[in-house]
C-alpha cells in the first residue's frame, strides 16, 4: 500500500515536472485544488444519493449507512471547505443543531437548525420523520450545489492550504474528538480518522518539496501513527485522547508550521493587516502565544508604556477610589486568593442584600468576545461601567471618579506615565485600558494539563489522565468548554462566545428552575429570542478549583455538585420541562470513580503562577 503510494507520487512528479521544466520544483497547489474540487463533487453526489435512499424508503440501517457515507465525504473535504467557505459550512452544512438568529437583519428572524448535525439527529431518532428529513436534505443539496458552483472559481494558494491544514488539526482536536459535530452517532473517532488522513495526504505533497528529509519523515510518521491510533480504538468512550494529542496532534501542529516556513511561503501576518484571535505563528496550541491578546483587547504589550499601564491598573483594581463611598474596590468581589472570585453564591450588594449573580474568576477573562454571564457587554469598558454606575456595586459616576483621580498627585503621575501620548486627565478609555492591562497578567496557560499536552516531561496521574479523556468523551464537557481555552470560545477561529441553556436549579437538588432569564433579558435586541431564555455564558474552566460556588447563581457549592447535575442531564434530565435546553437530557452514566477522575482533572487545570507577582 505504502509502496504503491510512493509510485503514484513519483508518477505525479513526472507529470508535474514535465509541465514545469523551467522550474526547480513541482507545485502541489494545483493537485490540492483538483483533489478539493473532486472531493467536493463526490460530497455533493453522495448528498443526492442520500436523498434518493431516503425517498426510496430504505431501511433504517441503509439510511444510516448512506448518511455515514455522506459524513465521511464531508470529513474528507472538511479541512479545506471549512477554511475556504467557513460561513457556508456553519450556516448550511455542519452548524450546531440549534436555532439561531439571522445576521445583520433589521428585525429578529429565527432560523431553524439545518445541515448534517440536525439531519443526524433525525436519522438516528427512534422513529423517522421522513418528511422533515427530506426537506432538510433538499435544502442541504441545494446549498452544496451552490458551494460547488462557487468553488470552481475560487483559487487559493499554498499559504491558505497550510492555514487550512493547521486549523484542521485544531478542529479535529476540539470539535472532532469531542464529538461536538456528531450529536447522535458516536462516530467521532471514525470521522476524525477521515479528516486526519485527508490532512496527512495534503501535507505529504508538500513534504516532497523539502530537501531536509528528516522533517518530511517525521511528519509522515506522525500522521501514520496517529491514523493507526485512531483506527485501532475508534470507540467513542475508549479512545485515549490525551495521548493522541500529546504524541501526534500537538507535534504535528508545530511541524506543519516549520514545513510552511521552510518552503518560504508567506504567512498570514504578511497578507492580512488586521489581527486574528489566534497567532498562526505559534508552534503550540496549549500555550500563551496561541491566543492573540491584542485581538481581544487591543492592548499593545510591546509598547514601552505597557508596564506603567499595568501598574496603574493594578493600583486602580485594588483602590476603593472607584466607589462612591470609598468602601469597595474591584478586589472586593474579585479576590486574588480565590482566583479573583469571592467565594460567595452571589456578591454582597452595597446597601445590604446580594447582587443578581455570582462573581466569576478573572483568569483568562480577557479572552472573550462578550462579557457577563448573559453576554450583554461586547467590550470590557461596558463591563466595568456597569459596576461603576450600579447603585448596588460602586454607585459611582465618571465625573466623581475623574475628579478624584485628577486631584491626586500620585495618580496624575501614574496616568501620565501610562499614557504619555494622550493629553488630559483621567478618562474612560485610560481607566479601562489600565485595568485591562493589569488583567492581562491574570493568565493561566501553564497548567499541568497544558504541559502534558505540549509534550513536556510532565506525567498526569492515572486519574487526571482518565479525567481528561472523560471530559473530552463520555462526560461530553468539551463540546461546550472547547479546547484549548476550556471556555465557550468557539474553535477554530475563536471569534465568538457561546452560551448554553442548562436549566440550573436554585439549589443542587431543588428541582426548581432558577428564574434568571440570562441572555434573553440582557438588553441586547438580537438576543431576545426564546432559545436564549436561561442561557448563560460558558466560562473558562482554568482555575475552576478556586472559584466555588458555581454557576451564575452560585447555588452549587462544589465541583461534585456541578458534575452530578450534568451527570443527570441538567434540568430536563431531572424531569423538568424546560424548552431549548442545549445540554442533552440523557444521563451521562458516570460512576463514582469517573466523577472522581473528572474532579482530579479539573483540579489539575490550575495555574495560579500569575499570583506570584503579587
Amino acid at each position: 500500500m505504502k509502496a504503491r503510494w510512493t509510485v503514484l507520487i513519483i508518477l505525479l512528479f513526472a507529470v508535474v515536472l514535465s509541465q514545469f521544466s523551467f522550474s526547480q520544483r513541482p507545485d502541489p497547489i494545483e493537485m490540492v485544488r483538483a483533489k478539493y474540487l473532486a472531493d467536493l463533487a463526490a460530497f455533493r453526489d453522495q448528498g443526492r444519493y442520500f436523498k434518493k435512499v431516503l425517498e426510496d424508503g430504505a431501511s433504517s440501517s441503509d439510511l444510516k449507512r448512506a448518511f455515514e457515507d455522506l459524513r465521511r465525504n464531508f470529513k474528507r473535504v472538511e479541512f479545506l471547505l471549512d477554511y475556504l467557505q467557513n460561513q457556508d459550512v456553519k450556516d448550511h452544512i455542519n452548524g450546531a443543531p440549534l436555532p439561531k438568529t439571522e445576521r445583520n437583519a433589521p428585525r429578529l428572524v429565527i432560523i431553524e437548525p439545518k445541515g448534517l448535525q440536525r439531519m443526524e439527529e433525525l436519522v438516528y431518532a427512534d422513529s423517522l420523520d421522513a418528511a422533515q428529513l427530506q426537506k432538510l436534505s433538499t435544502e442541504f443539496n441545494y446549498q452544496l450545489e451552490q458551494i460547488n458552483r462557487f468553488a470552481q472559481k475560487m483559487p487559493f494558494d499554498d499559504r491558505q492550504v497550510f492555514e487550512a491544514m493547521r486549523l484542521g488539526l485544531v478542529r479535529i482536536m476540539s470539535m472532532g474528538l469531542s464529538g461536538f459535530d456528531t450529536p447522535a452517532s458516536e462516530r467521532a473517532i471514525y470521522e476524525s480518522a477521515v479528516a486526519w488522513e485527508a490532512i496527512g495526504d495534503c501535507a505529504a505533497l508538500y513534504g516532497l518539496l523539502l530537501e531536509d528529509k528528516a522533517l518530511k519523515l517525521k511528519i509522515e510518521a506522525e500522521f501514520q501513527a496517529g491514523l493507526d491510533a485512531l483506527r485501532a480504538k475508534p470507540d467513542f468512550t475508549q479512545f485515549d485522547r490525551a495521548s493522541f494529542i500529546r504524541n501526534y496532534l500537538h507535534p504535528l501542529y508545530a511541524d506543519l508550521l516549520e514545513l510552511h516556513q521552510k518552503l518560504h511561503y508567506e504567512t498570514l501576518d504578511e497578507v492580512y493587516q488586521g489581527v486574528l484571535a489566534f497567532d498562526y505563528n505559534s508552534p503550540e496550541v496549549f500555550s500563551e502565544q496561541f491566543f492573540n491578546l491584542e485581538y481581544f483587547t487591543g492592548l499593545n504589550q510591546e509598547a514601552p508604556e505597557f508596564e506603567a499601564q499595568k501598574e496603574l491598573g493594578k493600583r486602580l483594581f485594588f483602590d476603593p477610589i472607584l466607589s462612591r463611598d470609598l468602601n469597595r474596590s474591584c478586589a472586593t468581589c474579585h479576590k486574588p486568593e480565590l482566583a479573583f472570585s469571592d467565594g460567595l453564591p452571589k456578591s454582597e450588594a452595597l446597601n445590604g442584600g446580594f447582587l443578581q449573580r455570582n462573581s466569576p474568576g478573572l483568569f483568562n477573562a480577557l479572552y472573550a468576545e462578550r462579557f457577563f454571564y448573559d453576554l450583554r457587554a461586547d467590550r470590557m469598558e461596558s463591563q466595568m461601567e456597569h459596576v461603576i454606575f450600579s447603585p448596588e456595586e460602586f454607585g459611582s459616576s465618571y465625573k466623581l471618579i475623574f475628579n478624584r483621580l485628577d486631584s491626586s498627585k500620585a495618580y496624575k503621575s501614574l496616568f501620565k506615565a501610562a499614557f504619555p501620548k494622550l493629553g488630559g486627565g483621567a478618562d474612560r478609555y485610560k481607566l479601562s485600558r489600565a485595568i485591562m492591562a493589569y488583567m492581562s497578567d491574570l493568565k493561566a496557560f501553564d497548567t499541568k494539563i497544558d504541559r502534558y499536552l505540549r509534550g513536556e516531561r510532565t506525567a498526569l496521574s492515572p486519574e487526571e489522565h482518565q479525567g481528561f479523556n472523560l471530559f473530552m468523551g463520555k462526560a461530553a464537557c468539551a463540546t461546550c468548554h472547547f479546547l484549548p481555552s476550556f471556555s465557550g470560545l468557539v474553535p477554530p477561529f475563536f471569534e465568538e462566545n457561546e452560551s448554553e441553556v442548562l436549566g440550573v436549579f436554585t439549589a443542587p437538588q431543588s428541582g426548581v428552575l432558577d428564574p434568571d432569564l440570562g441572555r434573553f433579558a440582557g438588553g441586547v435586541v438580537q438576543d431576545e429570542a426564546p432559545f436564549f431564555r436561561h442561557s448563560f455564558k460558558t466560562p473558562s474552566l482554568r482555575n475552576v478549583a478556586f472559584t466555588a460556588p458555581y454557576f451564575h447563581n452560585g447555588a452549587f457549592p462544589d465541583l461534585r455538585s456541578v458534575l452530578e447535575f450534568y451527570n443527570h442531564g441538567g434540568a430536563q434530565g431531572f424531569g423538568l420541562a424546560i424548552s431549548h435546553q442545549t445540554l442533552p437530557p440523557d444521563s451521562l452514566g458516570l460512576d463514582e470513580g469517573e466523577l472522581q477522575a473528572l474532579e482530579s482533572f479539573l483540579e489539575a487545570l490550575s495555574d495560579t503562577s500569575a499570583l506570584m507577582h503579587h
Partner: protein
Amino acid sequence: MKKALLFVASMATALAVQAQSFSPEIDVTNWEPTTIQVPKSPLITQYLFIGGHDVVQTTPTYGNPADTALAKQWHDFIGFTPDNNGSDLGWISVNHEMVVAHDKIGDGGGMTVFKVRRDPATDSLVIVSQTLADGRSGEFFAVDFANTVGETGMNCGGISASDGRIWTAEEWWRGSNSDIADRDTGDFTIGVGTSSYAAPNGFPGYDGQTIKKYENYNYMVEIDPREAKAIRKQYNWGRQPFEGGCVMPDNKTVYLGADATPGFFTKFVADNAGDFTTGTTYVYKHDAMGTKWVEIDNSDFNKMINFNSEAVMAGATMFNRIEWVVEINGKVYFTETGRDNPASRWAPAAALGCVYAPHHMQRAADQSAEFNKTITPDSAEYWDYYGRVMMYDPATEQTSVYLEGGPYFSVDPGVSQYPDKHLSNPDGLSKININGKDYMLINEDLNGTSKGRTPAGISNRTCELFMLDMSITNPGLNDLVRIAVVPVGAEITGAIGTPDGKTILFNSQHPSTSNPFPYNNSMTVAITGWDQVTIGLPEDAFEGESFQIYPNPATRTLYFNTLSDVAIYDVNGKRINVFRQVENIDISLLKPGVYFIQNAEGITQRLLVK
C-alpha cells in the same frame, strides 16, 4: 484514494499555474534600484466625534435636570446642514443605531449634533462652541427626542436634504412593547405623550390619536440640528422599517426606502414646497396601469400605522431590503442590500398580490437557466448574496440596476487584493461634488462572509467605502475607487460629502475593541482635501509595457500596470508583505521609510514612503 490521485494528476496537467515564491530575504546592499516616491498624503484626517468618550449636553429628562453625559455609541447616518446665514461651515448630525435605556439622554436610540467651521489656513474642521435657545452650552448636544416626540429606536439611516433639513430613520422593526428598551410602555397620544411624561410635538391632523408605545416607533423623524431637538415624527409617510430617503430639488417630492423583505419604495409629494405635513403618499407598483405610483390615503391614520398591509393590498413592487436613497442630477439611486435566500420572507406578500421588481424576475430567469429548473424569487433556491445599487428615473417611472454587486462567480479576491473586485451588500449611499464632478459614495455592510464576500480564512467582516465617478456610463465594479484611508477593522457607515466638495465625513461604527484609541469607539471621521487630489488612477499613468508602479498618495494606493504577485521588503531586505494577483495594493499601514517592492518576474524597485 488511488483513483482520486490519478484524477488529480490529470487535472494538474490541465490547470497548473505556478505561484511566484518570494525569498524571505533579499540582498539590498549592492545595487541601485529605481525609486518610487510616495509623497505624504495631502488629505487631513480628523476624528471629530468619539462615542463613549465625548461629552454631550442633555436636556431635563425623566425628572433629571439638564446635565452632561458620555455620548452614545453605534454611529450610523450623518446629516449635514450648511450654515448659509453664518460664517461657519454647518451642523453635523450623527445617528446612534442602538436601543438602550438612558436617564439623561433618553431611552432608545438617539442623535448627537455639533457645529463645525473651516480653519482658513488648513481647511481642516474645527468644532464650534454653541449656546442653544434652551440654554445648553457646549460642543456636542444630544438631540432631545423624549420630551418632544417620544423616544426613538435604532436610528440608522436618514435624509440629509440639500437645504439642510434632517430626518433620522428608525429601522429596527418593533412588533410589540416587549422589544423596546423604553421603561415607560404606557400608551402614547400624539401631541401629548404618555401618562408619565409629555411629548407635545404632534402632527397636524393626527394630534390626539392614541397608539401603543411600540407603534410610536419606525418613522422618519425630522430634527432641528441647530437646536438639537426633534421636530416631529413624519406619521404621514407611514410606519415602516425606514432606512433612507431623499428630498428632490423641487422640495416637494420625497423618495423613501424600507429595509425589509419585501421592502417597499415610497413617495411623498407635498402640497406646498417645503411643507411636508400635507401632501400625498404613494407606494411604487411598477406594473400599474398609467402612473406607477399607487396612493395610500394618509388622511386615514390607521393606514399610516399599518402602512405595510396597505402596500401589500395595493400589490406594490417588492425589493429585497432597500437601504439608503440619494438624488443625483434628478435621478434617484438607492441601495438594495440583498438577503441571501429571501424566499420565505416575501412569498406571503407575493401570494397576496405583490409583485417582484423586474430585476428580481430577470435574476430568477437567469438562475432558472443555470439550474435547469424553474426558479422564481420565492423559490428556496433563489439567491441574492451581494445586493446592488438601483436607479429610479422619475421621467420614466422605471427602476433599473445601476451597479450590480458581486461579481457573481467571483474569483476569490484573496486577502491582499480585497475588496477591489467586490461590492457586497451596499448599504449607505450618498454623494459629493468635487470640483464640479459628481461622485457617488457607497458603503458596504456585509450580510455574511460567504461566496467571496470576504477572503478565505478571514472571518471578520470588513466593510468598505467606495467612490464612483458619475460621469462613467454603464459603470462596473472596476470603476469603483476604494477610499483606503480608514482605521483598520472599522466598519464604515454614513459617508457624506460637504457641499464645498472638500470633506468626506463618515462614521466608523462599533469597531472591535482591539483597535487603539480612539479607533476602538464608534466615531465620526472627517477626511479633508479631496478638492486637491487625484482620485483613482489617471488614464495616462502608465507608458509602455515594462513593469510600472503609480502611487496615489491621497488614498495610499500603489497601482501596477499589470496583474502580478508582489512582495514588499523592509529596508533590511526582510519580506513583510506578499500580495497575490493584484493590480493595486493599499499601503496605508506602511510607516514612512524605505521599502523594496518585487514583482513576480523578480523586478525590484525601491519604495520611498513619506
